[in-house]
C-alpha cells in the first residue's frame, strides 16, 4: 500500500527535483559556457549565469569562425553530414530488415534456417570485432570520406531483422490467407498489410536507430579524414586539441549542445509512437 501523506509527497518530489538537478546541471553549465567568450570561461570561479556572447559563439560555431588550436570547421556542415548519415542509416536499416524478416517468415527457401541463424549470430558480435576487415573493404572500394562509407557498413542490422521477425510471427495466418483469397501477391501483401501493421514497430526503430546513427563515433573516426565529412560527434573531438592548448570551450560547448538537439527532438516528437511500438499489440 502506498500511503498518501503530504510529507511523503513532499519527500518524493524533493528526490525527483534533486534528480532533475543532477541531470540538468551539466547541461546548464554547458549552456552557460556557450554564452561567454573563451577567456571568461577559464576564469576562476567560472561564471554560473549566462553571459552576453550567445550570438557571437553560435555564429562562430555554426559557420566556422573559431580561432582555437583544434579544428574550427563549420558545425552547420557537420550537422548536415550527421543528419544525412543518421537518416540514411535509419531508413536503410528499416527497409533492409523489413524485407529480410519478410523473406524469413513468409517464404520457404533452401537453407532458410541457416540464413536466419547466421543473421542471429551476428547479433552476438559487437561492431568493434569486425571493424578491421570492414575498414579494409571500405577503403579498397574507395569509400573513405563519402556518405556511402559512413552509412553502408552500418546498415545491416540483426537486431531490427529479429524484431520484425518476431512481430511478423504474431500476425495471424488467417490474415495472410485472406489476402491470398483477395488476390494480393506477396509484395502487395507486404506493402498493403504487413508494413502498415508494423508502423508502430517502425516508429520505435526509427527513434532507436536515428540516435544510434547520430551518435556513431568509432566508425566515422576511422573513415573520415576530411573536415568536409566530419559528423558532428567527431567534430567535437577534433575541436579539442590535446595537451594544455587553450581550447575555445565556449564553441566546444555550443557544438555539444547543438549535437544533442536533433536526437532530443526526435525523442520528444516520436515519444508517443515509440512507447506504443514497444508496448502496443494492436492487431
Amino acid at each position: 500500500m502506498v500511503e498518501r501523506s503530504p510529507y511523503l509527497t513532499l519527500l518524493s518530489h524533493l528526490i525527483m527535483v534533486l534528480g532533475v538537478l543532477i541531470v540538468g546541471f551539466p547541461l546548464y553549465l554547458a549552456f552557460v559556457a556557450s554564452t561567454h567568450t573563451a577567456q571568461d570561461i577559464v576564469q576562476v570561479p567560472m561564471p554560473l549565469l549566462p553571459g552576453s556572447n550567445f550570438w557571437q559563439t553560435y555564429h562562430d560555431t555554426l559557420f566556422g569562425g573559431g580561432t582555437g588550436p583544434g579544428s574550427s570547421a563549420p558545425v552547420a556542415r557537420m550537422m548536415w553530414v550527421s543528419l544525412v548519415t543518421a537518416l540514411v542509416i535509419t531508413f536503410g536499416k528499416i527497409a533492409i530488415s523489413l524485407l529480410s524478416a519478410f523473406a524469413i517468415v513468409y517464404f520457404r527457401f533452401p537453407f532458410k534456417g541457416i540464413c536466419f541463424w547466421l543473421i542471429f549470430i551476428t547479433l552476438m558480435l559487437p561492431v568493434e570485432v569486425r571493424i578491421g576487415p570492414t575498414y579494409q573493404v571500405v577503403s579498397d572500394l574507395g569509400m573513405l570520406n563519402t556518405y556511402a562509407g559512413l552509412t553502408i557498413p552500418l546498415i545491416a542490422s540483426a537486431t531490427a531483422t529479429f524484431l520484425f521477425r518476431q512481430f511478423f510471427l504474431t500476425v495471424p495466418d488467417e490474415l495472410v490467407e485472406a489476402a491470398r483469397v483477395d488476390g494480393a501477391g506477396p509484395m502487395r501483401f507486404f506493402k498493403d498489410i504487413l508494413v502498415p501493421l508494423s508502423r508502430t514497430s517502425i516508429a520505435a526503430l526509427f527513434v532507436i536507430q536515428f540516435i544510434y546513427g547520430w551518435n556513431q563515433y568509432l566508425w566515422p573516426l576511422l573513415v573520415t579524414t576530411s573536415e568536409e565529412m566530419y559528423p558532428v560527434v567527431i567534430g567535437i573531438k577534433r575541436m579539442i586539441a590535446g595537451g594544455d592548448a587553450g581550447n575555445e570551450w565556449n564553441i566546444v560547448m555550443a557544438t555539444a549542445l547543438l549535437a544533442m538537439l536533433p536526437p532530443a527532438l526526435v525523442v520528444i516528437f516520436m515519444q508517443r509512437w515509440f512507447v506504443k511500438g514497444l508496448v502496443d499489440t494492436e492487431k
Partner: protein
Amino acid sequence: MASLSLRNIVKRYGIGPKANQVIHGVNAEIQDGEFVVIVGPSGCGKSTLLRMVAGLEEISGGELRIGDRVVNNLEPAQRDIAMVFQNYALYPHMTNFDNMAYGLKIAKVPKEEIRARVDKAAKILELGHLLERKPRELSGGQRQRVAMGRAIVRQPKVFLFDEPLSNLDAKLRAQTRLEIQKLHRELGITSLFVTHDQVEAMTLAERMIVMNAGNMEQFGTPEEVYSRPATTFVASFIGSPPMNLLKNAPGGRPGSILGIRPEHLDVRDSGWALQVETVELLGAERLVHARLGDEMLIIRTHEDQGAPAIGSTIHAQPREDRLHWFNAETGQRQ
C-alpha cells in the same frame, strides 16, 4: 454461380511411404446454389477439405471442379471463391469499407463500381453507418458481417465458411445463423460451410457431409442423416443425446448393432427391463439414463410423465419402425 464437384479428393502431408494421409478420397457433387455443411468432430479433416477447395492447401490427389473448370492448381484468387474465416481475418489497419473493397481494388475494378458494390453489400448486411470505422471499433457480430460483406462484394461462384459462428455468443450465433440463411436465399450462391456444431449443421444445411477421421461418412439432407444414419459414427455424432447403440439388445441379431434414438423408446408396463441410474430434467423433457444388462442407454421422456425413482426397474418399448441395424464390425448400416 456454379456447381462444385469433388472427385476422390485426397490430402497427404509428406511424400513417399512415410506420408501422412489425412483425407481419404472424398466424393461429392454439389449442385449450383446449394448450401452444403461439412460437419465432424475436431481433427476430422473438415477444415482441411474446405481449405483445399479454397486453394489454401494443395490438393494431393483427385480432381476439384468449380463449374466446368478444374481448379486444382489455381491460386485462391483465380478460383472465383470467397471465404469467411473463423476469426474474421479483417485487416485491422483498414476501414471496413477498405476491407470490403480490397479484393476488388486488386482486381482493378473501377472505383465507382467498387463503391456501388460495397454500398449494396453494406445495405444487405445493415452495415451502412459503420463503413468508415475500423474493425476494432466493432462488436464481434458486426465484424462477422463485415467479413461476410467482403465475401459478397466479390460476387464469387462459391462461398466458403470456416466455422464463422464459433466466436460469437450463443444468442448472436442463433441470430447470425438466420441471417446467413436469409442471405443464401437472396443471393443463391453455392455455399460450403464448415462447423463442428451439429445444431448449426442441421439448421443451415440443405445437404450435409458428415466427416470422421478423414473419411466422408455420409452425404445427405439433414432428414436423411438423422433418420437413416449411414454408419454408427453418424448415428452417435448427430442428435443430442446421441442414438443408443446396443450390442446385446433383446431380440438382437448376432454380429449386428441395434440403434435406437432416445425419443423412440416409450416407457410402458412391459418391454425391456431397465435399471434406472440417473435422471436429468432439461425443462420440457427428461432424460433417463438406465442400464440394460451391461449396457447403458438413454430414454427421452416428456416432463409430465414423472420421474422414475433412481434404482427402480422400469420397462421400455422400442418403436419397431424406428430401429436401425448396423454391422458390428464395419459400423455400416445394414
